[in-house]
């Protein structure tokens, strides 16, 4: 209601400003006439038809004072494209001293190394439980190979190799549980040596015609096997070598 009245009031004010007599305006809105009359009356007095202007002399004097102040403003021309390019060139040149470049290089290198190291460490932790065929498995093997390259004493080296080999056997078990096909490798004792089937560390290993056998493995020898584990859990050897 109030909002509607305010809109009517504003329309009446516009009509007043357009020169329409007050009584004519009120006749258009008889329901609101009583309420509108004092307000429009006040609006009529407000709309002074002869506003007081600044005396010309004073206005001229004030304008002169203003222009005097304006004339003291320093020039601030916009830089041209060429000036901008030169400014950028100077900034770059200032940055290109031997010391600053060296500092920048060191900072970039250290940051890159730290980032890479952090990323590798994180990936290694994530890759720890991967099995052959997984995306991160090669990273797991790389990490193991790096550990084997470290200068350790012989017993520690053997201990590590044994740990890693146990990992390979566990991985084969996991692959078999999931019926997955993957290239696997492991070391173990050759327990029985048939014509086309050898038992190595409890696993039946098929020997296809093109199998590569390095050395002359005998029953009881420790051998290293590389081959393909099929979904039906059969292990087809690709290479068997004596250790």
């Amino acid at each position: 209601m109030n909002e509607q009245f305010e809109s009517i009031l504003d329309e009446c004010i516009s009509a007043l400003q357009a020169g329409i007599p007050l009584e004519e305006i009120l006749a258009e809105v008889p329901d609101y006439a009583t309420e509108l009359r004092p307000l429009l009356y006040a609006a009529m007095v407000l709309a002074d038809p002869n506003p007081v202007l600044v005396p010309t002399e004073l206005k001229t004097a004030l304008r002169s004072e203003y222009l005097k102040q304006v004339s003291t403003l320093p020039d601030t021309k916009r830089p041209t494209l060429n000036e901008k390019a030169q400014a950028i060139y100077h900034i770059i040149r200032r940055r290109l001293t031997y010391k600053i470049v060296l500092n920048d290089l060191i900072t970039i290198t250290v940051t890159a190394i730290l980032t890479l190291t952090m990323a590798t460490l994180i990936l290694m932790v994530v890759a720890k439980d991967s099995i052959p065929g997984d995306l991160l498995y090669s990273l797991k093997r790389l990490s193991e190979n790096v550990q084997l390259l470290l200068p350790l004493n012989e017993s520690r080296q053997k201990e590590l190799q044994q740990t890693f080999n146990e990992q390979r056997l566990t991985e084969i078990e996991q692959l078999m549980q999931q019926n997955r096909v993957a290239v696997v490798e492991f070391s173990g004792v050759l327990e029985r040596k048939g014509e086309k089937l050898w038992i190595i560390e409890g696993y039946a290993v098929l020997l296809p015609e093109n199998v590569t056998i390095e050395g002359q493995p005998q029953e009881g020898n420790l051998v290293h096997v590389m081959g393909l584990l099929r979904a039906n859990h059969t292990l087809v050897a690709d290479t068997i070598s004596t250790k």
Partner: protein
Amino acid sequence: MNDELSLLERIQQHDQEALTEVYDLYFDQIYRYIYFRLHETDAAADLTSEVFLALVVALKADKPPRTSLVGWLYTVARNLAADYIKHKSRTVPLVDELIADDPPLSDQAHWTQLIPIMKQSLRKLTEEQQDVIALRFGQGLSLAETANLLKKSIGAIKASQHRALASLARLMPEVDNE
């Protein structure tokens, strides 16, 4: 609007021609606004001059108006007018004293006598209401333009205008309905 923007851009570059143009374009407008707030010719002229000198000072300090030149000028004008009203101690006759000996208002000859009463009554309004009245009636700005300058909604300006006119109507002598 585009002219104002181009003018704004030019004054930001300290273009003296543009600064002269700004003065000639807006001096009377700003003066009328301040006069409507103060109702003192000399003070209004001085404060109007100060608004434009403030523009020069702002340019020197590298703090020119950024978005709206008119908005900036009105803001400075409002602040200066408010400061003036606040700080200047004045002895002004009361409305009652002004109208005490007035003859009946039905006589058109006394119409102009109402203007000083109205001016006196305006001072009793809130600052926002005075602004709205000064811009709507002193400047003849539309509701939208007033709302834009005072950074309020059109609805708020309508309401403020209503309240201001109602207060003024209460302070005016009885309206002759004839």
